[in-house]
Each structure stands twice: as structure tokens, then as C-alpha cells.
């Protein structure tokens, strides 16, 4: 067994380091997570289905997944654009902008939530012109959910795509253009295929983060049942009504979805490494 685990290393501390890692991982992460599944198994299958397909719960799941998907798509487009501009076009303050892209990682979600609400409210700096000029209401509608999710997912695509763009060989683009390709053709045929795995990874990461997001959304969403109530808020509401089993049923649906996403992201990263090796 020992020989199977450890292949001839002179370094000390393997047993204690791995033992501590597995023990701590189990106590802090695995055992508590298993509590959610154990609690769900105390429900009958019919009760579980009834809990997660109640109209209000279904609407909240649809909103969380739908808005997360839309926000991740927005972030894929604009994240690629921001990464491209940061890598290719020198402008004043580029280093500052580059550092600030990570702000959604560092800014507590509650702060982001109240700040976005203040800005996008009907009397806010951006919300008022949008309401006056286009009659679009952002805060306290599903659109507000989208804004919050676009905010928190912003760095993912930029940070996964940026290193790939930095490594991109300009000779390839120049070769394409000297062979008569237009800018659009060069982008679609040369640049996009190279960044596609990283772009997909960033998209999946932004989506996974947005599905479970709570703090930044609840302030701006208005939280109207059936309209702008997200699934994590549904869990909190059920907990406040002491419906622990109902809350856990929704939580398990979200956990299974996020595990599937985690596997997808791991697969994508494995693919993009192989892809990069194959191309080089």
C-alpha cells in the first residue's frame, strides 16, 4: 500500500501532509456537503419533486440559470474585447485599468450590490438616463439581475483569454492579411480558433459563479416572487420559514448543477492544454 502511494522519494512529510489534507478537506468540505444530500434523502422522491417544481421555485431556478447564461454570454463578448484591447492597444492608464478588471473578485458582493443599485436605480446616474431616454427600467427588474451578474463575472473571461492573446503569434495574422484576408476573416479564421478553449473556460467559470451568486443580486433585483427572485434567495426564504428540507432540495439541485459545471471546466482546461500543445 505504502509503495503504491509513494514512489521512491527522499523528501519527508508525505504521510502527515497528505493525511492532514484529506482529514481537513473531509471535515471542512466533504462532510458538510454530504449533509445536504443526506437531508434530501429523508424526503420522499415525490416530496422532492414537488419542492423543486413548485411554480415559484421553478421560476427562481429559471431566472438564476437564464440570467447567468445571458450574463456569461455578455461577458464572453465584452471580456474578449477588453482582453484584446489590454493586450494589443497601448493607451494611457492601461496598467490601472488592467488592475481594476479584478475589482469584482476583490469587492465584497454586498458592496457591489448596493453600489449597482444606487447607479442603476430609476434616479441613479445611469438608471435615470436609461429610464428617461429609452423607458428602460434596470434596477428592481430581471434586467437588474443581469447587470449584477455581468458585474461579478466580468474578470473571468478577461483573465482566461488574456494570457492566450499575449502568446498569439502576430506573424500568423500578418500572414493571413498579406494573403488577402480581411480583418473580419483574420479574426474568425485565425484568432478565434486559438482563443476558443480559453474563451469557453472563462465563459463556463463566469456562468458557474453567476448561477450561485447572492449578495450582489438581492439588492438590485427587487426580489418579486415569480419575476425577479433568484434561486439562492428562494433557499434563504425557505430557511426563514423553517422549511429546511425544502431549502435543501433546491440547494441539491444547484449543487448538482455546479458539480457538472466544475467537471465541464476541468474538461475544458484539459482540452485547451492539449489544444495548445497540438498547435505549437
Amino acid at each position, binding site marked *: 500500500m505504502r509503495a503504491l502511494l509513494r514512489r521512491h522519494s527522499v523528501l519527508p512529510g508525505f504521510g502527515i501532509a497528505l493525511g492532514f489534507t484529506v482529514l481537513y478537506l473531509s471535515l471542512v468540505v466533504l462532510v458538510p456537503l454530504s449533509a*445536504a444530500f443526506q437531508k434530501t434523502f429523508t424526503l420522499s422522491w415525490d416530496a422532492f419533486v414537488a419542492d423543486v417544481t413548485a411554480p415559484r421555485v421553478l421560476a427562481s431556478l429559471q431566472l438564476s440559470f437564464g440570467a447567468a447564461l445571458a450574463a456569461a454570454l455578455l461577458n464572453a463578448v465584452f471580456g474578449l474585447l477588453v482582453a484584446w484591447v489590454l493586450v494589443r492597444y497601448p493607451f494611457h492608464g492601461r496598467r490601472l485599468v488592467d488592475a481594476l478588471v479584478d475589482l469584482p473578485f*476583490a469587492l465584497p458582493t454586498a458592496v457591489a450590490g448596493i453600489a449597482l443599485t*444606487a447607479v442603476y436605480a430609476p434616479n441613479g446616474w*445611469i438608471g435615470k438616463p436609461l429610464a428617461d431616454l429609452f423607458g428602460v427600467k434596470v434596477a428592481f427588474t430581471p434586467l437588474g439581475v443581469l447587470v449584477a451578474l455581468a458585474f461579478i463575472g466580468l474578470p473571468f473571461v478577461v483573465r482566461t483569454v488574456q494570457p492566450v492573446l499575449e502568446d498569439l503569434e502576430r506573424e500568423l495574422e500578418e500572414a493571413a492579411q498579406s494573403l488577402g484576408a480581411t480583418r473580419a476573416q483574420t479574426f474568425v479564421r485565425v484568432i478565434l480558433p486559438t482563443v476558443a478553449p480559453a474563451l469557453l473556460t472563462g465563459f463556463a467559470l463566469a456562468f458557474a459563479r453567476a448561477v*450561485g451568486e*447572492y449578495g450582489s443580486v438581492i439588492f438590485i433585483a427587487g426580489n418579486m416572487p415569480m419575476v425577479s427572485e433568484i434561486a439562492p434567495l428562494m433557499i434563504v426564504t425557505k430557511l426563514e420559514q423553517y422549511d429546511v428540507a425544502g431549502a435543501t432540495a433546491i440547494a441539491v439541485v444547484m449543487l448538482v448543477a455546479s458539480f457538472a459545471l466544475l467537471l465541464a471546466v476541468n474538461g475544458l482546461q484539459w482540452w485547451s492544454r492539449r489544444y495548445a500543445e497540438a498547435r505549437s
Partner: protein
Amino acid sequence: MAAVLDTRLEARPNARRIAWVPLALTAVALAWLTLFLFVPLFAVFFEALRKGWGTYVAAIAEPDAWAAIRLTLLAAAIAVPVNLVFGIAAAWAIAKFDFRGKSVLVTLIDLPFSVSPVVSGLIFVLVFGAQGWFGAWLTDHDARVIFAVPGIVLASVFVTFPFVARELIPLMQAQGRDEEEAAVLLGANAWQLLWRVTLPNVKWGLLYGVILSNARAMGEFGAVSVVSGHIRGVTNTLPLHIEILYNEYQFAAAFACASLLALLALVTLALKTWVESRS
């Protein structure tokens, strides 16, 4: 520089004609960042100081705000060191040794990142709450975890769990085992190996992980919100205090407290940029 530019323009004769493309793309990218990042960030400080410095200082000096700040610092002061020790142990085992199931272990360490903050809080309610696994036992022994400080610390530990390990594992893998093996052959013991060889080699990555987990621990909202019970002056962290003030329409006070966390975020970003430039 001019010469370099000229050759490139010569190589692409149509480049000068459509030089507006970089300009337009830069403008659109900056407009997007302005709408979603810069304006909201500026709004935090603007709203905080809207009613003047007097209101600002009063909102932060208020006893409940102070209690919230102290609890936030306490949770981070426990969660960050505990996960730091774990991160070093995990990275040592994963980066310096070969064993079966390594990739599964790495995936499992990332799990807390993919769990919704609310679910992260909920699972501790299921373990330690009144109807949870240890609920009855805790009541018998007159101890509380949920709706008390231990629950908040546990939730903070869970959400910051992967940060240090995740920074250290790739770094230590890239550095290989040669230096450590040489040190062992020269007679170093495990302790000397760690302090003299391994940790000095990864100090910037370590610092980076600590900075990120500290920011997350101090700013966590969803997970802490579920286990806190929102008892003023007792189980409110700073983000929860902000929520209460905001829901009571005390906007200036809410944004004053929020500006402290926004400053923390800016300091985090500055430190991060500095660490990146060093390593």
C-alpha cells in the same frame, strides 16, 4: 519605435486607412468597463460622503458598526491562518509526491469555489443547526454554532478554503523537487526544508493567496448571512451590517461602511499588482 511602426505599416498597406478600428475597440471596451466597474466604484465613495464627513465618521464610530468590524477581523484572523496551514500541507503533498487519485484531490479542493455562498451556509445549518446532526448534542451542552460566532468562522473557513492551496500547487509543481532533494542529501531535516528551501521559494505566491483569502473572508456575505441570525452587535459582520443599514434606508451610513470594504478591495488589488510585479 517609429521605425518599427513604419515597417509594420509597410507590411500592411491598409493599416493606416483603418486606424480607427483600434480606437473604436478601445472606446467600446472602456465604455463597458466604465458602466460596470468605474461608475459603481466611484458611487460607493460619492454616496458615503454625500452627507459630509460628520455623518461618515459617525456611521463608522457607532458601536454596532465597531462590533461588526471586530467580528469581521476575528473571522478573517481565524480563517486565513487555518487555510494557510492547510494550503501548505496540501501543496507539499500534491506538488512534491506522486500518488494515485491526485487529480481527484485537486478537483475536490476547488469544490468550495463552485458552491453557491447560500448553500455554503446552509450545509453548516444542516450539521450544527437546531434540527441538524449535532443540534441536540449542542443544545444539551449549552453550546451554539449556528446564529453564533463559531458558525460565522466556519462559513468563512469554507468559502476561503481553496485560495492558498490553489496558488501554491501550480507554483510548487513548476519548481520541481531538485532543491528539496539536494537539501535532504545535505542533511536538512523536514523543518529546515520547509523554512529554508520551500517557503522562501514560493513566498510571493503564498502572499498572493493570503491576500485573496483575506479579501474573501472579510467580504463574504451569502454564506455568513445564512448562519449569522443577524443579531446586532453580536453576530453581524461588516457586510451584514451594511445590509441592515441599507434596508433601514440609512443609505449614507450603509455606504460609509461599504467604503471601508471598497478601500480594502482597492488595497487588495494594489498588493496583488505589486506581488505580481515582484514574482
